[in-house]
């Protein structure tokens, strides 16, 4: 047995490497119309997009900073670099990606995952996608998986224009407006009617540059009677200055289609993660969110589902792990906008070493959403006495035949359970780790396998404070 040393932070060796910034182009820190124009020019936007960006900047300047969540005082927009273009063009062949960027993703296991079990992969480094590939058989079915920039100029240009930031309008909140002004990178996915993709697509977002922001946009359109599983992973090395992630995800789920959207977010602990995700689901369709939040300094993250058609469904499964210095404000929102819709929200949160984890949910049932069902269950586990856990559920029910339930439980690791496991020869820290990973078990089962393994390793590292 190795001697273990108590440390306050986990071993992030897997993520904490970084390479020198060899960016080809980088805008100045801060946010002005000139900078936005510059980004737009750099990205060869169509004219409508250039105008849209400037319009978003106006909105950004008018909307106040949210005053209801964790503090974001540490975030100074004058010091955030909004656009960093890596020193490469987007490649369709892995061997053409520059060595340092390739090394980054190799270390994160991205190309291996592609070879094994993915239908397509996109890899974003700082502000731009550096690699993109879709398997031939998938492309032949008419599935489009590309970066948004190419899509803006290709045959899907009109489709992008009619969907881009229509589900999440820039007026939604300050950081949605910011996103609209400076967005860059991300993915466009189009799944034609009747196509069932049996293996997932994956995007991986990596922010390497210091003091930068990442503002990728993900737009997914799944036509009727189709199926897609999309996985996104995020990470960044740690710097001692604030980084910002204000991405935006818009998901359109067609009639009787299912979209499963899995996220593992493991940003470094200097990251402000102010992310917006929203899905709109047509008749008989289903959105399945699986969300693991482990990293970042501060997170505001509440994926929202609009159940627009009769019988539309939403399933949200989430886990949040807040360690030292972290304030993770996560949850989910559902709007029942049609009859016979149903939503099921199941979340677990763990807080440790003074970490703060807040669960917020909002369930809105409109008058026309007759016979709708909603069940919200959130469980929190505080590993010690200095950590915090809050639950803030909101419900707005406008019909009297909805079936709505909420269950919240906040607990601690019971001494009796630790004693029980130890009485079978298991050490105290192993016993605690077993209890915590057991608590997270029904969520980790939902994650893609390699992420479930990663999550378990992460819990073990967090619980044991082991070095190396």
């Amino acid at each position, binding site marked *: 047995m190795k001697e273990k040393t108590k440390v306050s932070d986990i071993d992030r060796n897997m993520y904490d490497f970084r390479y020198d910034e060899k960016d080809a182009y980088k805008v100045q820190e801060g946010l002005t119309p000139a900078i936005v124009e510059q980004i737009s020019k750099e990205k060869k936007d169509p004219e409508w997009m250039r105008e849209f960006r400037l319009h978003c900047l106006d909105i950004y300047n008018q909307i106040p900073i949210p005053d209801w969540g964790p503090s974001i005082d540490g975030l100074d927009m004058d010091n955030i670099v909004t656009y960093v273009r890596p020193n490469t063009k987007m490649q369709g062949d892995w061997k053409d990606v520059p060595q340092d960027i390739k090394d980054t993703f190799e270390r994160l296991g991205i190309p291996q995952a592609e070879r094994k079990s993915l239908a397509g992969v996109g890899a974003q480094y700082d502000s731009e996608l550096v690699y993109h590939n879709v398997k031939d058989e998938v492309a032949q079915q008419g599935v489009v998986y590309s970066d948004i920039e190419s899509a803006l100029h290709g045959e899907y240009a009109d489709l992008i224009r009619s969907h881009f930031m229509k589900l999440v309008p820039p007026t939604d909140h300050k950081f949605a407006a910011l996103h609209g002004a400076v967005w860059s990178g991300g993915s466009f996915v189009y799944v034609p009617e009747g196509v069932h993709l049996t293996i997932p697509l994956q995007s991986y977002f990596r922010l390497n540059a210091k003091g930068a922001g990442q503002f990728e946009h993900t737009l997914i359109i799944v036509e009727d009677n189709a199926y897609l599983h999309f996985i996104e992973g995020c990470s960044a090395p740690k710097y001692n200055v604030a980084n910002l992630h204000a991405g935006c995800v818009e998901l359109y789920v067609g009639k009787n289609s299912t979209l499963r959207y899995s996220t593992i977010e493991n940003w470094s602990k200097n990251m402000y993660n102010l992310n917006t995700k929203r899905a709109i689901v047509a008749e008989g369709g289903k959105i399945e969110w699986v969300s693991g939040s482990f990293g970042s300094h501060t997170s505001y993250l509440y994926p929202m589902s609009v159940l627009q058609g009769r019988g539309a469904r939403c399933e949200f499964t989430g886990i949040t792990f807040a360690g030292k210095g972290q304030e993770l404000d996560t949850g989910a929102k559902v709007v029942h906008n049609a009859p016979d819709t149903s939503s099921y929200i199941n979340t677990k949160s763990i807080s440790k070493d003074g970490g703060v984890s807040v669960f917020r949910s909002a369930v809105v049932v409109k008058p026309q959403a007759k016979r709708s069902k909603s069940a919200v269950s959130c469980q929190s586990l505080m590993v010690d006495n200095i950590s915090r856990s809050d639950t803030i559920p909101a419900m707005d029910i406008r019909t009297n035949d909805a079936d709505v339930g909420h269950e919240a439980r906040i607990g601690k690791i019971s001494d009796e359970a630790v004693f029980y496991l130890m*009485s*079978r*020869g*298991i*050490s105290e820290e192993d016993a605690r780790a077993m209890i915590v990973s057991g608590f997270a*078990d*029904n969520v980790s089962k939902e994650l893609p396998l390699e992420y479930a393994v990663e999550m378990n390793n992460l819990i073990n590292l967090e619980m044991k404070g082991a070095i190396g």
Partner: protein
Amino acid sequence: MAENLLQVENLNVNVDDKEILHGIDLEIGRQETHVLMGPNGAGKSTLGNTLMGNPRYTVTNGRILFNGQDITKESVDKRAKAGIFLSFQAPIEVPGISLGDFLRSAMEQRTGKRMRVMEFRKAVQENMELLNMDMSYLERDLNVGFSGGEKKKAEVLQLLMLRPELAILDETDSGLDVDAVRTVSKGIEQYQKTVKGSLLIITHSTKILEALNVDLVHVMVQGELVAIGDDSMIEEINEQGFAKYEA
């Protein structure tokens, strides 16, 4: 080795600053089966928990020797690895950990060796059959949703798999129907026969003892051991209760 397996010397034990056990002396030899009886609240479970090292219980005086080693200050897991086992009166439910995974990692701790899944399943099968447990229990979360009888069977299964030198059984028979008591008792017999360890059986009923060979009976009243005798005491207590000892 001449010394007793377990030697408890003049043990005083507090719970929440209140003294529960007052100067307990107890010796258990190798391969001996002892029974600890007494009315409710006498401190029997406190003794069992203290021997296992439950941090809720504070030893204020005296010491515990196991195989000649002073383990009074030893942590719970080290005692378990040394060969002490406590079957819980109310086994704890632990969601998200399957009985099988738990049992396998406990066995790995006990033996210090990695164990393959197939090897484990083979080893566990015989004992599960003996206890009338379906193999599917291995996939279920540890004790979660188990009935009283199923929990106790799972405890005895752990006993048989971990093969401790000293097994303390805390009310393993309480709340069980006749059939379940018979099954559990069969498991304990199996432990006597195959593991040849020592037993300290805490009980306030006598059903479970019918099929077992008992060497010594101790009676505890109000935190003190007040009487010791052979297995004829069981019959006597069965008929007359503890009135005679509660002076």
